[in-house]
C-alpha cells in the first residue's frame, strides 16, 4: 500500500521487515533517521528477537555487526561520510571474513572542509573493500534494495552497502509501497550461515594468513564478487516477480539504445537526468541514460553492451579523485577499452551542490565536452583565489590543465 513517508522511515520499516537480529546504531547525518526509526520499532516491540545496540562509535557499530554476523545473526547498521571512514578498518574485515552484513550509506561528502550534504565520496572511498555496493535511484528503491541486499549478502557471503543519496533521498517524502511481512518472508528466508561461532562445533575464525596462502584468499574474494554479478541480476529478477516492480539489477537504461549521447549516472540524479532527456528528445535530440545500480562488483559487460553504440558518453560523477577525475569514469573507460567513443568525466553535485535541469541542458547543448569538466564551477572565485596565491592563472580548469601537470600520464608511472 502506498504511503507518503520520509525515505529514511521507509528504509527503517523495510529493514525491520527483513527481521534483523542485531541492529547497531550510531548517529551521523544524514542516515540518523533510519536508526531512529528502527529504535522506535524495536522498542515498541514490533520487531521481535532483535537486539538494538547504541554503540559509542561507527568503528564499534560495524564491529558489533561483525561479531553478531559471525555468531550467525542477521546484522544491520547504517552510516555515512566520516562515519564510514572511521569504520574503514572494519569494512575490510567484514568482507575479508565473508560476513553478510547489510549497511545503509546515506551518501554524504567527506571533510575537510566539513560538509553534511550529498555526494558519493564516502562510499567511493570503500569501492575496493570487497563489499557489494548498490545505489538507490528512488525512495521506493532505497527501501526495496534492503530486502534484495540481505538476500544477495546471504547467498553470496558478502556484505552489501545500500547507497542512498543523503538528503536528496534520505530526507525526502515520497509515496512508498512498503511490502507486507508475508511477501518479505517469502522472498527472504531466515539466515542460515555457512559457518558460525557455535560452542557445540568450535571453529577458529580470523586466523593469521601468511604469504603462502594470502594471494589465494584474495583471489577467491575476487572470484566470489565476479560471480556475484549473476546472483545480483538473478535475484533482482526474482524480486520483480515477487513484488511486481523493478528493483536493483546491474544497470538500467532509459532511451540509451541507439542514442548518440549517453549519460552515465549513479543514484538519485537519474530522475533529473530523465526529465531533461524527455525534454530534449521531444526536440529531437538523441540522448539516453545508463544508470548503474550495482557499482561493485562493476558490471563491465552490461555497461559495455549499453554504451557500445553511443557516439559520446558523459559520466556524471558525484565524487572527485583529485588530479585524476572520477572513479566511475575510470571504470567506464575500462568497460569501453578499445572503443573510440569519447568519454567525458563531468564532476557535479559535490558537497550537495544541486544538479539542475538548466545546467544539464547547458552541458548537453555543448558540441564538445572536455575529457574532464566540472559542472557549475564558480570560475571567478577560483581565479581570484589562485591570483591571491600568486599562481599562474590557468587558461583552462579542465583536462588541458590537468594533463599539463600530469606529464607523463599517470598510467605510465
Amino acid at each position, binding site marked *: 500500500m502506498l504511503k507518503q513517508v520520509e525515505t529514511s522511515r521507509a528504509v527503517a520499516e523495510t529493514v525491520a521487515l527483513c527481521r534483523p*537480529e*542485531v541492529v*547497531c546504531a550510531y548517529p551521523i547525518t544524514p542516515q540518523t533517521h533510519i536508526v531512529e526509526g528502527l529504535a522506535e520499532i524495536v522498542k515498541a516491540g514490533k520487531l521481535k*528477537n*532483535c*537486539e538494538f*545496540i*547504541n*554503540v*559509542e*562509535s561507527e*568503528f*564499534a557499530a560495524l*564491529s*558489533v*555487526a*561483525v*561479531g*553478531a*554476523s*559471525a*555468531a*550467525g*545473526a542477521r*546484522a544491520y547498521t547504517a552510516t555515512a561520510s566520516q562515519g564510514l571512514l572511521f569504520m574503514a*578498518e*572494519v569494512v575490510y*574485515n567484514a568482507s575479508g*571474513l565473508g560476513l553478510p552484513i547489510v549497511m545503509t550509506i546515506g551518501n554524504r561528502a567527506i571533510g575537510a572542509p566539513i560538509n553534511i550534504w550529498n555526494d558519493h565520496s564516502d562510499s567511493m572511498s570503500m569501492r575496493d573493500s570487497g563489499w557489494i555496493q548498490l545505489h538507490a535511484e528512488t525512495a521506493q528503491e532505497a527501501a526495496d534494495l534492503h530486502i534484495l541486499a540481505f538476500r544477495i549478502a546471504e547467498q553470496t557471503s558478502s556484505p552489501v552497502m545500500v547507497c542512498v543519496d543523503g538528503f536528496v533521498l534520505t530526507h525526502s517524502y515520497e509515496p512508498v509501497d512498503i511490502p507486507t511481512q508475508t511477501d518479505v518472508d517469502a522472498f527472504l528466508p531466515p539466515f542460515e550461515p555457512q559457518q558460525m*561461532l*557455535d*560452542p557445540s*562445533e*568450535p*571453529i*577458529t*575464525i*580470523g*586466523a*593469521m*594468513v*601468511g604469504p603462502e*596462502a594470502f594471494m589465494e584468499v584474495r583471489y577467491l574474494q575476487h572470484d566470489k564478487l565476479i560471480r556475484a554479478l549473476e546472483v545480483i541480476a538473478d535475484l533482482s529478477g526474482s524480486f520483480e516477480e515477487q513484488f511486481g516492480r523493478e528493483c536493483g539489477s546491474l544497470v538500467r537504461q532509459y532511451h540509451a539504445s541507439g542514442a548518440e549521447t549517453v549519460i552515465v549516472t549513479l543514484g538519485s540524479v537519474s530522475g533529473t537526468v530523465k526529465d531533461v532527456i524527455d525534454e530534449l528528445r521531444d526536440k529531437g535530440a538523441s540522448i539516453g541514460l545508463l544508470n548503474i545500480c550495482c557499482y561493485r562488483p562493476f558490471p563491465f559487460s552490461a555497461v559495455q553492451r549499453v554504451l557500445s553504440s553511443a557516439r559520446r558518453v558523459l559520466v556524471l560523477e558525484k565524487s572527485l579523485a583529485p588530479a585524476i577525475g572520477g572513479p566511475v569514469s575510470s571504470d567506464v573507460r575500462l568497460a569501453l577499452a578499445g572503443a573510440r567513443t569519447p568519454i567525458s568525466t563531468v564532476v557535479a553535485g559535490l558537497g550537495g551542490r544541486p544538479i539542475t535541469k538548466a545546467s544539464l541542458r547547458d552541458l548537453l547543448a555543448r558540441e564538445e565536452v572536455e575529457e574532464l569538466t566540472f559542472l557549475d564551477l564558480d570560475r571567478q572565485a577560483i581565479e581570484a583565489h589562485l591570483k591571491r596565491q600568486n599562481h599562474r592563472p590557468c587558461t583552462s580548469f579542465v583536462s588541458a590543465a590537468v594533463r599539463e601537470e600530469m606529464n607523463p600520464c599517470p598510467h605510465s608511472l
Partner: protein
Amino acid sequence: MPAQFVKFYQTGTFTAGNRLLTIEDRSVQSNPTRSNALTSGHRACRGCGEALGARYALDAAMKAAGGKLIVSNATGCLEVFSTPFPETSWRIAWMHSLFGNSAAIATGIAAAYKAKGRPDIRVVAQGGDGGTTDIGLGCLSGMFERNDDVLYICYDNEAYMNTGVQRSSATPPAARTATTPAIGEHPGHEFGHGKSVPLIAMAHRIPYVATASVAELRDLEFKVEKAIAIHGARYIHIHVPCPLGWGSEPADTIRVARLAVETGLFPLFEAEFGTVTERMRIRRATPVAEYLKLQRRFAHLFAANADPGSIAAIQKIADRNIQDFGLSA
C-alpha cells in the same frame, strides 16, 4: 580472598594442582578432563606469561560455562602465536577480528545469542594491554557502560610485545622499551604517565572487576569462574610477565609475577559495582628493587651512574598501592 594460598614447604612451591590438596582446592588445570582451550603446539616464547594466563583463564571459563563459551580475541601476540593458518591452538569457538574491537565483537556475539534466546552461551573478549588500555579502550568502555553480557580479560605484559616491545599506556615508569630507550637524563619510560584500566572499569560501576596474576593461578581461576557466573559487563586484568620484552629469564616468569604482587606494584583485588570488596594482603612487602633487578628493562636503574631517586620513586608507587588498596596484613 577466594582461594587459600598453599605453599608446599617440602618443595618450596605453590603448585596449584598438587594432589596433596583436596579436590576442591585443586586447580581446573590439574583436572585431566579440562577443555585444553589453548592447546599445545602454539608459537609462544619460552616462559610466556600470556600463554599461561590464557590457558588457565579459558579452561576455567569453559568449566564455569559448561563448555558453552565463545571467545573474541584482539590482534596481538596471543592471536598471532595461536593461529598461524592453517593451524590453530584453539579448541573452543574463537574469533579474531581487529586490534581495537575485541570488546565490540564480543558485544555482537552476545547480542546475537541473546536475540536467538540462548542466554546459556557465554562470551569472553580478550586482548593484551595495547589492545585493551590503548587502541581498544573506546570499545571496552562502550561495552562496560551498556553493561553488555561480556567478560573482558586483559593480559597485561606492559608493552606492545608483538610489534617488538614498544611502550603502551600500561608500561611502568622507568621501563626500557623500543620507544622509551634507556638513554638521556630520564632513561626509560616517563614517570607519571600511564593509566589503570581496572580503576577505569570500576568507574563504570560494572558488576565485577578483578586483577589477577599468573603467580596465583588458583586465584586467577577462581576469579574467572566467579566472573562467568555473573551476567553483565565484567573485567579481569591479569599480570603476565614477558621474558622477551622484560628481559627476564623464562624460568623466572612466576617468580617475577609473584614479586610484582609481593612488592605491592601489582595489587590483587576484586571490586563489585565500583567498590573494592577483597584484596590479597601482603604480610611483609618486598622492596621493589628485588622485582626490578630480575628484569633487564630496568637494568639502567642499577648502573653505577643511575639516579637513586628512580628506584625510590617506584618504591613510592608500591607503597601508595599498599595504602590505597589496603594491602597491609
